[in-house]
């Protein structure tokens, strides 16, 4: 019994020690860069009324997701977006962290028929809307 105990103890110590050297580093990610400017924002009309609302309604503010009563924000109108715009969460989660599997929006668990990623064209509109300071119209 004692030999078994010593054996299992040694095994545990070896396992723990062997994971440590191979797994210790102190690295930082690069600062998130804004999306590459593929289109010139001077040529893109980007206001909430003109085209952003349509993108948001189709990719965020649909039934079971970010609509009234969902408990996770109602993004189906301009005033409902103010909180996430002002806190920077909109830009962070839709643009800067869009590839993050957890916080990137739209999410990887979007229901069938709803996009899990925005198209390049939609991203351009959103980016230009952000650069213009989120105009309503």
């Amino acid at each position: 019994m004692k030999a078994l105990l010593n054996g299992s103890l040694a095994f545990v110590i070896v396992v723990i020690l062997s994971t440590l050297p191979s797994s210790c580093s102190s690295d930082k990610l690069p600062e998130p860069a804004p999306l590459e400017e593929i289109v010139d924002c001077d040529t893109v009309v980007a206001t909430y009324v003109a085209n952003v609302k349509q993108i948001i309604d189709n990719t965020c503010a649909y039934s079971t997701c970010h609509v009234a009563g969902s408990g996770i924000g109602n993004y189906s109108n301009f005033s409902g977006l103010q909180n996430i715009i002002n806190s920077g969460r909109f830009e962070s989660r839709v643009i800067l962290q869009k590839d993050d599997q957890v916080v990137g929006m739209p999410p990887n668990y979007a229901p069938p028929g709803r996009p899990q990623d925005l198209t390049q064209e939609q991203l351009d509109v959103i980016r230009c809307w952000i650069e213009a300071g989120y105009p309503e119209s």
Partner: protein
Amino acid sequence: MNHITLTLVVVVVSLTGLFGQNYAYQTFKDRRVINTQSVETLPARTMDIRIAHRFGDFAGRNGGEPTFFGLEFAEDVAIGAEYGITDNLMVGFHRSKGAGVVPNGPSGLRQLWTLNGKYRVLRQTDLVPITITLSGMTTFSSAQQVEVQPDDAPSIIQNFPEFGHRFAHNVQLLIARKFSPAFSLQIIPSYTHRNLVAFNDENGIFSMGVATRVQISKVFGIVADATFPFSDFRTSDNNFYPAIGIGLEMETGGHVFQVNFTNATAIMETDYIPYTTSNWLEGQYRLGFTISRQFRL
């Protein structure tokens, strides 16, 4: 004469025996308080099956009736087993979802496999005032790597430029005293290391925890704990908050059942110490529970 010597020896031996073995039992009833570890280890050859659950925000922006007070969401779920090798040494293995996220930044590790161990160095007796336990933990993320173009450098953790970036570690010194049969107090100096962090984040974090337990009846106890990271970055201005929990613990034989409220979304040390970004004052606390069942092997 011989008789007296023998009597003396018997008295001395029984006295030392008394002092040596009059341990303070059950400083805490469980190996965890709420979020924090406790000084307790499992008895030798005992297995503990554990399930812990943290729901969504109870109140505030994402809570209330629309989400049935957070019960529609599972912020973190951990299932695991721990085993007592000796009365003072235990190891454990857990799988949890992972819940860490930097405010307006990348999420932390997900799909967590955690190996932990605890060794009780010193045990409170009539002569020794405190119990000291060492605790260590290594967490590995099995999340799928997010592929990127060679010239693209996304600021997301799941890019895992190196295999080692899937790991995070935590070591702790647990120091506790059972002041009376009904009151125990513990402090937890701790160091957490994450191998890959966001550009403005820090890899190593020192923190201090406090934990307490008050027995209120034969079966029920109130537990509370709090963990404070020492950091210029982890401030409320940057939307980081101390992880604070309060819970009701019920012990019946080999079961420990706990219902708690905490602002921490994550369950593992490598997750809730760096990533508690929800605020009690904004209703961002959640219902949680822990079930522990011990089996004698």
